[in-house]
């Protein structure tokens, strides 16, 4: 617990060190990191390049007015840009005519059939009677699969076993839906590669034949650089209306979402988050932006720190640390600052890398209570000179704070250790340089 506190403490101070404005020099490393984060997330190489360039242009010359460092401000701008882009990439899924015709298309194994089922459930839940049409006449047992899926969501499946004319099946399926009063019809198609011109002709023909209200390109969130080419090829043929990004319950960062939107300008309408039939969600732009950057919620943390850290107060404390006059009174005020930022576990969870490590670990906010109680049981003089405490004083403090002498000793020991660390930080200088500036980690100048 105390270690974490110390870490927070360290950060809280370093946050104050930002000055000046954003220049090529002070954000160079950060830009590289941002670019790497995007590429690691499988954002298209060229898209990443353009994006980073845009962020840089936007950021250069910006005054760093707050407690942020230039690098941190840049990350904030990056996140804002990405969220904005992703926000543009979000669009509602609207059911229009009755029946509303929906076409699903994509590569093999993207999850079309599963998502046909999920979508059927989603629409049925909106009180529209839905029909599934099985047009994957190639993959063994694909029709069976759709039938099983249809059964599990209690939706009728239109299939013509043995027929290999996918265009005809699609047409007749939609006709059937019209005649029988269905509110929506979802046409599942075979997976196909963008280079397979025969199959691409087929999907184009299906699209023309049924004139869907929504044609959705289904794409695996794990897709790499190829996402762009594939999306482009499908878009050229069927001018799709939106994207379903699947398998987001995995740990892929899903940069393909950004690439596809940047290149073909089509919105993401749904994300698939599991194999169950209700594992379909509306696309959340901000979550996607965070996921692609893979940076935890750095920005939120920085923003909150910004709101609560009183700069004057902090300067005073920084001065004290430099003169090695930091005492328990200052320590108490720091704890209160940190607590103002919110629940400690939430705060730590927002730190990149730490969130994961904390999963399942229970951080006790009360640990702070004890520390506070002990310090509050001291006289001002004791707080400024903790080394002067003898056993009888310690006993009194323990009694006053409802703790034991050992606990008082532990706190004092840790406080001394922390002061040593602070001294080292004073002298040690630039060890955080070159790394990704997180709150309090880098010291871009």
């Amino acid at each position: 617990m105390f270690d974490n506190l110390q870490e927070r403490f360290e950060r809280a101070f370093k946050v104050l060190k930002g000055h000046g404005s954003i220049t090529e020099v002070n954000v160079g490393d950060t830009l590289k990191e941002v670019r790497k984060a995007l590429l690691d997330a499988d954002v298209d190489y060229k898209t990443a390049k353009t994006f980073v360039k845009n962020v840089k242009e936007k950021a250069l010359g910006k005054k760093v007015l707050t407690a942020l460092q230039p690098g941190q401000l840049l990350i904030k701008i990056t996140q804002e840009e990405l969220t904005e882009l992703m926000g543009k990439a979000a669009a509602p899924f609207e059911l229009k005519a009755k029946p509303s015709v929906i076409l699903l298309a994509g590569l093999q194994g993207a999850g079309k059939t599963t998502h046909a089922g999920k979508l059927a459930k989603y629409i049925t839940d909106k009180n529209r009677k839905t029909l599934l049409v099985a047009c994957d006449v190639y993959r063994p047992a694909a029709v069976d699969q759709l039938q099983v899926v249809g059964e599990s969501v209690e939706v009728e499946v239109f299939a013509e076993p043995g027929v290999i004319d996918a265009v005809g099946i699609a047409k007749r399926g939609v006709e059937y839906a019209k005649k029988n009063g269905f509110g929506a019809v979802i046409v599942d198609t075979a997976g196909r590669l963008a280079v397979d011109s025969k199959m691409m002709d087929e999907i184009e023909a299906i699209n023309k034949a049924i004139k869907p209200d929504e044609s959705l390109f289904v794409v695996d969130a794990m897709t790499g650089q190829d996402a762009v080419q594939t999306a482009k090829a499908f878009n050229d043929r069927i001018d799709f209306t939106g994207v379903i990004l699947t398998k987001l319950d995995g740990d892929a960062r899903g940069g393909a979402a950004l690439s596809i939107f940047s290149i073909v300008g089509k919105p993401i309408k749904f994300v698939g988050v599991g194999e169950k039939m209700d594992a379909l969600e509306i696309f959340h732009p901000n979550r996607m932006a965070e996921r692609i950057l893979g940076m935890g919620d750095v920005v939120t943390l920085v923003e909150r720190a910004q709101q609560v850290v009183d700069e004057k107060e902090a300067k005073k404390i920084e001065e004290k640390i430099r003169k090695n006059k930091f005492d328990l009174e200052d320590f108490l005020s720091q704890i209160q600052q940190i607590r103002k930022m919110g629940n400690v576990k939430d705060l730590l969870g927002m730190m990149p890398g730490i969130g994961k490590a904390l999963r399942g670990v229970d951080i006790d906010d009360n640990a702070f209570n004890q520390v506070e109680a002990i310090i509050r049981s001291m006289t001002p003089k004791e707080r400024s000179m903790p080394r002067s405490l003898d056993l009888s004083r310690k006993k009194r403090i323990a009694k006053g704070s409802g703790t034991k002498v050992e606990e008082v000793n532990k706190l004092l020991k840790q406080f001394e250790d922390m002061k040593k660390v602070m001294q080292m930080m004073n002298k040690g200088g630039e060890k955080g340089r070159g790394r990704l500036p997180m709150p309090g980690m880098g010291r871009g100048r």
Partner: protein
Amino acid sequence: MSFFKRLFGKNKNQSAEQVEKKASLDAGLEKSKKSVISRIAKVFSGRRKIDEDLLEDLEEALMMSDVGVDTTERIIERLRKRAVWEAYLDQSELINMLREEIAHLLVGDDIGHALTNHSVFSVDEIDSGDGPAVILVVGVNGVGKTTSIGKLAHRYKSEGKKVMLGAADTFRAAAVEQLKIWGDRVGVPVISQGMGADPAAVAYDTLESAKANDIDVVIVDTAGRLHNKVGLMSELTKIKSVMDKIVPGAPHEVWLVIDGSTGQNALVQATQFSKATDITGLILTKLDGTAKGGAVLAVCDQIKIPVHYIGVGEKMENLQDFHPLDFIDSLLPESLDDK
């Protein structure tokens, strides 16, 4: 420099069989591939030394093939270092230097491997004693496990082996049906228990039956699972231990199927599956599209698992041996050609 000559010379003198294989692949893919060498040469033309522009072009080509930032940077870094001391370079030497660096990642230090056909995996290599050779096939959802198994069955059967399949994907709708259809197509028996059955029980039945019927090669299909789902990953461990009870040492091979269009997540998949099951080989699928499968470089390099086969279509014949050099060449040219 003799190594480059060797590498380069070897490629020129590809056996007629190899050339033919490659030609048929190209035709099948309807790709009008110009000679790889001539295309790279175009990029390199007019450049006699490695400069930053050239390295940037190479970086872009590798990144756009999903090789990833870290691996790309390592390759480029090594090229940069070598460029200093190997002062006189002509185009073919540059090309070969690059190929050598990638081969180094793909097949480790034994670069000679990449040059010969010895790296081609053969099912005869599996040492299963008197019992059947047991292969367990795993992977995330939608990578092409079942299709690959159909193709493997076809291949081994054509090699004169008695093959049996086990339908232990009892989860995905109609997965059992799909494998059965493959079994019919290829003409090999499929052991199944229907949907929802315990996959370990299916594995048990399959191996029992294989033993009783004097089968040579058993291939067991499993449900696709995302590698971050702990419960599903431990299910694999259970399947494995059941297998070992019936055929000691089984599964002799555990193959991870990776979708060729997967990006940087491929390495995570390989890492996680390796933790759960000791992966012994990779099958890289869907390489008949525009995806390059470069992500597998990092997998080979960092986890030291060899690629055994590549999938290049939906027909049962569309499974090829993995030839490192062909793969390396396929990583480079197209994006360089854009320049």
